[in-house]
């Protein structure tokens, strides 16, 4: 039953793709995608914890039969990517016209198909095709919906960096395929490579390749511009299912294909940890300074992906140093972290679209939005923001706590370098958590909670319900975690030989493999919290009714002031950190005064500010210049003379003849 549902997914999405191309109103496409997502959700729930068995697709690609198989980890990540994708399909993008909507839906269908392929296809060539289809779908989504009037250069930048990643993946698969003698992933998994520097190269290639999509440094720099030229719904897909797919591919590559002994694999693990933590730090610092909903949320996705990569590295490290229980715990933690992340991020992206519908802009600014919208909208957004800020009792808190507990397990490792790495990474993740809290306080506080005089909003009922439902899903994930996590038990058994999931639960408590050290319990908190809140609520209601309240305006020195001008802006909120960490940001802060009759009489002031990207000017710009200079020197070939071209063709033919004659 579950299998049939899972097979319905590509069918429905393929149908939706065609419908989007042919039917300009986009209705059928939306229905198709939404139904496909529903089918996927139901199917994943039904097939966990066993996963979806192998199915031969029926094609042959270069003499290799294409197999499709969803492991339990893939099912888990697919499930949590499909839930927000369903809501995104129902609520749709904020594209201005129907034809743009249908272009966007076509892109979405492509992305979803590609992601499904990445999760399930089991040989290198079809995997690469699925990977590229996923990237193409993303580009079509952004370009298709035409939300911004910018030219497509952010999308081109994204595609360029993703191509660098794709080349890295291709090289790694070639290397592996060469060693294994076959392009199927099964062969690569059973290959027992001997430890050698090739392992290090392989690991780095995998990290670069999948990291380009995950936002590992320096690749997170395409995130803000690309997300910022799309709508929130595009961000739901990018940060949800696509991110999960990329992470799953990386996890499988690193854990299945690399030998789990030897110093080279350990160095891969250590590099992964450091890279993950550094990416997270840089990404969240830049996120904190952003002033656009989509850009801030995109960099936060890069941060969460960075943390997941770091914990994956820790898992590999523990597997190598002989702590299989900790390795299994770390792997499960990655998965629950990304699960909570995709739900919460999806909620906030849909909230961003709601903000856009009201304010006609994605700028984070105090507009009194929550006062004029139904309460459930705010509650859903609040749950999501709390989760990403790692506040109890939400899913983000659970996974953040587990991340730290996993790293503490690392103190048992007997290799000094490993212990040092773990310690430093824990410190780095603590810094990341603090800044993430500030970031989401800024987003929720200024963007939603702030005061301002908006006209009554026109948030549609589906959007409010969608945001609320997704927010509830985040809470439900946290509250039910002791039970949901058992779905990953058999998977961890098969990967690491230990069912860590059983040891993560102790009745209603969540524990890191043993209850002696620490525990948390969102399940109990969700009961105790409201009970404890009853007393203040009752007192409040009593005071409202019993006491006579005299309302006076806000005190501001004696004159009634325009509260909009006085309100905290997003720059004011983040300025302290910008000044303190100036060496990371390289902030520029420019106040121009227009003078009238000399330097003492100011007529007008113009203020703008910027934060400098690190890798843009120092890495990408020089590379671009290099490529341009090479292409300039090579462009002599484009001489324009027909005879020259004929001569070249003649030369080529001679070369082919020589090869055919003399090469055996």
């Amino acid at each position, binding site marked *: 039953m579950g299998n049939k549902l899972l097979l319905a997914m590509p069918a429905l999405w393929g149908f939706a793709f065609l419908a989007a191309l042919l039917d300009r109103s986009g209705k059928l496409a939306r229905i198709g995608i939404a139904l496909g997502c529903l089918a996927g959700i139901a199917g994943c729930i039904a097939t966990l914890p066993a996963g979806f068995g192998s199915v031969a697709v029926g094609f042959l690609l270069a003499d290799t039969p294409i197999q499709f198989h969803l492991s339990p980890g893939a099912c888990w990540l697919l499930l949590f990517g499909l839930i927000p994708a369903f809501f995104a399909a129902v609520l749709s993008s904020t594209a201005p016209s129907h034809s743009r909507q249908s272009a966007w839906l076509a892109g979405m269908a492509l992305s979803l198909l590609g992601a499904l392929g990445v999760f399930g296809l089991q040989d290198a060539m079809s995997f690469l095709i699925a990977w590229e289809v996923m990237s193409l779908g993303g580009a079509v989504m952004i370009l298709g919906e035409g939300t911004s009037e910018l030219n497509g250069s952010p999308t081109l930048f994204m595609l360029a960096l993703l191509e660098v990643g794709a080349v890295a993946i291709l090289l790694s698969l070639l290397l592996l395929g060469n060693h294994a003698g076959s392009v199927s992933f099964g062969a690569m998994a059973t290959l027992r490579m001997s430890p050698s520097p090739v392992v290090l190269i392989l690991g780095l290639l995998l990290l670069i390749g999948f990291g380009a999509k995950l936002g590992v440094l320096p690749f997170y720099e395409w995130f803000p511009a690309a997300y910022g030229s799309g709508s929130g719904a595009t961000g739901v897909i990018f940060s949800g299912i696509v991110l999960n797919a990329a992470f799953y591919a990386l996890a499988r590559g690193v854990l299945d294909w690399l030998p789990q002994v030897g110093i080279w694999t350990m160095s891969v693990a250590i590099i992964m940890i450091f890279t993950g933590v550094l990416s997270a730090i840089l990404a969240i610092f830049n996120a904190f300074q952003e*002033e656009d909903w989509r850009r801030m949320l995109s960099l936060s996705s890069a941060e969460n992906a960075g943390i997941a990569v770091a914990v994956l590295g820790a898992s590999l490290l523990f597997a190598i140093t002989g702590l299989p229980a900790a390795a299994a715990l770390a792997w499960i933690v990655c998965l629950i972290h990304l699960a909570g992340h995709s739900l919460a991020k999806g909620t906030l992206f849909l909230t961003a679209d709601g903000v856009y519908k009201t304010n006609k802009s994605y*700028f984070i*600014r105090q507009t009194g939005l929550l006062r004029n919208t139904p309460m459930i909208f705010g509650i859903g957004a609040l749950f999501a923001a709390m989760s990403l800020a790692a506040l109890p009792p939400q899913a983000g808190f659970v996974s953040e706590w587990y991340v730290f507990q996993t790293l503490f397990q690392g103190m048992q490792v007997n290799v000094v370098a490993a212990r040092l790495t773990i310690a430093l990474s824990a410190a780095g993740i603590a810094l990341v958590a603090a800044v993430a809290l500030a970031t989401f306080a800024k987003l929720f506080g200024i963007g939603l909670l702030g005061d301002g005089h908006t006209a009554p909003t026109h948030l549609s009922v589906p959007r409010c319900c969608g945001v609320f439902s997704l927010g509830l899903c985040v809470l439900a994930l946290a509250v039910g975690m002791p039970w949901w996590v058992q779905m990953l038990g058999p998977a961890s058994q098969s990967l690491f030989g230990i069912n860590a999931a059983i040891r993560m639960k102790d009745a209603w408590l969540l524990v890191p493999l043993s209850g002696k050290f620490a525990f948390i319990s969102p399940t109990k908190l969700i009961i105790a919290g409201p009970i404890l809140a009853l007393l203040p609520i009752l007192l409040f209601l009593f005071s409202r009714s019993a006491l006579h309240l005299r309302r006076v305006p806000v005190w*501001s*020195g*004696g*004159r*009634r*002031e*325009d509260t909009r*001008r*006085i*309100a*905290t*802006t*997003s*720059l*004011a*909120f983040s*300025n*302290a950190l910008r*000044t303190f960490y100036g060496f990371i940001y390289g902030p520029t*802060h420019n*106040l121009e*005064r227009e003078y*009238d*009759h*000399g330097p*003492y*009489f*100011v*007529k*007008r*002031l*113009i*203020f*703008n*500010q910027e934060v400098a990207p690190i890798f843009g000017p120092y890495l990408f710009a020089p590379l671009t210049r290099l490529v341009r200079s090479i292409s300039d020197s090579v462009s002599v070939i484009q001489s324009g003379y027909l005879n020259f071209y004929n001569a070249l063709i003649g030369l080529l033919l001679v070369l082919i003849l020589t090869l055919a004659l003399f090469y055996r």
Partner: protein
Amino acid sequence: MRGATEHLLQPSGIAEACRQLTDQGARLQMAYAWFPEPGEPPEVLYLADRGPGKPFPLLRCRLSRGSAQLDSLAAQIPLLGWYEREMMDLCGITFAGHPEPRPLVLHEGAHPPLPPLDPRYPKDQLMPYTEKAWDLPPIEGNDVQMLPFGPVRGDVLESAQIVFYYIGEAILHCHPRLFFKHRGMEKRFEGLSPLMGTFIAERISGVGSVSHALAYCQAVENACDCEIPVRARYLRSILAEMERLYNHLYYLGHLCHTTTLKVGEAQGKLLAEQCKQFNSVFTGSRFLRGLLKPGGLRRDLNLHGVPAKLYALEPEIESYMRALETTNSHLDRLITTGQLPYQTAFDQGASGPIKRASGIERDLRHDHPYAAYALLPIRIPVRKEGDAHARAQIRMEEIRASLALIVKAIEQMPEGPIDTEVRLRPRAEGLGWCEGPRGSTYYGVHLDGIGALARVKVKSPSFSNWRVFPFTVHDTNMMDYAINEASFGLTIAGCDR
């Protein structure tokens, strides 16, 4: 006008004459207008200072009937900007081409039926007023916050509103909005006898009673060609120095309050309190009020016990100032805070210890001696840094100088009469000046046909210095703002009148 050399000009010649004066190194001090006859066009006067020993040049021009308009000089001589706006508000004169033609003294939304200083303004009629938003220089940029701080400010402070454009901690631009306390004191003088006028002059700035009353009395005495006895001169100098003493000690205490040096604050304010009690014991008034009158003093004072008290107080003050100068946490907050460059101080009309801290070496007691200062040794302390520390240091030197001056003056003071008769001359005009604790105070007194006051122009030092203040606040930060404002040590009542 006695006390100054006059030049009568046509309205068109004013710009050229001012340019000549600035070329010679003179510095404009004030500009004002008055109505010699009700219903006739006003006359505008500009006062300059050519330097030590040279008489004050005074430019006068009568505006033509039907067009109360002059060309604005604010672009060339920035410090005239505020004087011209004041004339626009209170006398109804238009200054064509003024760079900031916004209301200054009367807030936006005040609509007096006639310019208030017009003699025909109906007596005792409150002008109609509705609160309106300020006309501020616009700032473009989504991220900038505005903080309108005031007019009711925290703690016991005078009422004024300071508008900041800022982001978090960094102040981008500062725009003080003063004149909430404008009481129309200059109009109060109209019709009073010169003796009664003293009471108004004393209460323009409560902590500058003596400096204002002194400048006023000297203006009336100049107008009526009256020479006061030597003992009165000495007593006036002593009173002026006593006022300087308690003001500067309170200033040091308040500065410590803003740098959160609690014991330093307590000690400074206690010393100021001891000086006020000392004033009360010897003169009957903590603020030295009710002593001065045109012609001398109202009663004689027995100051024989003063040097002994000062000898007892001086070591306390010395040790306090030495302790302040060696406290690193206090100095850290003062050094480089609120830097005022020489050129800005000169162009914008800074006065008193503030201009001396930026390198302008001028003091009315030395350059144009009045009371008994010609007979007493005056040293002018000067600093070049122009920061809060320099302003504090100037005041410390002035405290030391005042203590020495009081003792010396009491030593040198002869016995004798303390007042003479003032024979009022109809239509007389006189200029009086005084170097108060905050800077130079000028009074221009015009008597009418029966010897009563027709117009008194009050130029208080806080008016000049408040104009300078924003230039030290732009592009600084919020933490330094309170320290900077305390280091200027200005009153708002003196500015607003």
